[in-house]
């Protein structure tokens, strides 16, 4: 195997693994795309690298010039991916991070030297977005990549992740992924529908709005600008909410197949299982699920070994998307 000049060369091209033994319906095959294999451990390495390279091409960031600062709101993975990319490229990163993320997320940000600005956990990611926008507005000299509105986010999935899935599983009938910024679903979903318009796109989300108690009213809600701009509502075929207990049950089932995946992957698998169970009689399916990250960042949650009721209760107050 050839050696690589930079760790950043290892972003993307992740493996697809069949886990049909976990399917509740023998007519539905299940495949997981292991995004935890990326260098910082999540699908967001793709987005982080694409956004930084776009900013370099646009002249917003100048490689090799000291003193350049980026600021970004993130519930974890995008911040961690950016921290890795910025460390390698010599930029200083500030991440606005809700206080109620797993401790491993903070630790990983620190590994690559990112500065953490804490936002109130009760406001969830919406609060982190608001705080980062306010801070960025006061610092025009800082680069604000803003993953929720940055076209490089869905584009990298359209150009890379979608084609990888099509290459490895051209028989795909359904695609299931978590809904966070919507970049993964928009980019991969659009690519797969262009190849085969009958592919069904399923979004899975956590009941995050239940734990968000810092909103004054529903008017504090947030829809990523890319979701509206790229016609997300028309692209998705289904959207389903998966609760923490079911997410934990499914990370345990994934472990039965040897797959060590994070809580949002458990949620996505639960969504895929619903999809499999609802197939019409006689239909065959190949369901591809994005496992956004691996389990390392969730070991402190006890997800695999703890009492499931206690784990699910703790997960209720933790942001894991």
């Amino acid at each position: 195997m050839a050696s690589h000049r930079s760790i950043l060369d290892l972003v993307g091209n992740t493996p697809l693994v069949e886990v049909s033994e976990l399917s509740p319906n023998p007519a539905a095959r299940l495949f997981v795309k292991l995004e935890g294999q990326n260098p910082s451990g999540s699908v967001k390495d793709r987005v982080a690298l694409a956004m930084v390279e776009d900013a370099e091409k646009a002249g917003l960031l100048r490689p090799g010039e000291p003193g350049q600062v980026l600021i970004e709101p993130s519930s974890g993975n995008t911040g961690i991916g950016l921290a890795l990319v910025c460390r390698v490229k010599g930029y200083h990163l500030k991440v606005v991070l809700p206080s109620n993320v797993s401790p491993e997320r903070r630790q990983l940000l620190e590994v690559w030297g990112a500065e953490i600005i804490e936002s109130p956990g009760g406001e969830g990611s919406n609060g982190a977005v608001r705080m980062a926008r306010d801070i960025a507005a006061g610092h025009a000299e800082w680069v604000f990549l803003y993953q929720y509105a940055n076209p490089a986010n869905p584009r990298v999935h359209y150009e890379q992740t979608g084609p990888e899935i099509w290459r490895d599983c051209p028989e795909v009938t359904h695609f299931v992924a978590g809904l966070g910024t919507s970049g993964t679903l928009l980019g991969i979903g659009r690519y797969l529908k262009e190849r085969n318009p009958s592919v069904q796109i399923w979004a899975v989300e956590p009941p995050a709005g239940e734990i968000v108690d810092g909103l004054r009213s529903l008017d504090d809600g947030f829809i990523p600008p890319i979701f509206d701009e790229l016609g997300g509502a028309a692209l998705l075929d289904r959207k389903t909410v998966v609760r923490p207990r079911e997410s934990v049950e499914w990370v345990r089932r994934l472990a039965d197949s040897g797959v060590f995946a994070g809580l949002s992957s458990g949620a996505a698998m639960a969504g895929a299982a619903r999809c499999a169970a609802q197939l019409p009689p006689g239909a065959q399916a190949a369901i591809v699920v994005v496992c956004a990250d691996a389990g390392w960042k969730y070991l402190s949650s006890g997800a695999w070994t703890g009492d499931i009721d206690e784990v699910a209760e703790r997960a209720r107050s933790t942001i894991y998307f």
Partner: protein
Amino acid sequence: MAVAVDVRLPTVLRSQAGGQSIVTVKASTIGDVLRELVSEFPGMSGQLLNDDGSLHRFVNVYVNDDDVRYLESLETPVREGDEVSLLPAVAGG
């Protein structure tokens, strides 16, 4: 035919419903559910439905965990024993 359905409220709406986290309404569609809620708890008016009666942009409504925007929206039928959940639109990432 109208049936009794339980509606789970997010924290942000509970104060409008006297602190209750689950309320029961009689309805045959999701549109009925939301209009019943606004009628019973006027403080929710303007947060669930727009002036033209359409679903407010920042509220997500689920029947048995499926988002109604990808079913039949306000016309989505509800059956006895269904659980309806309301959640604010929240970011991730």
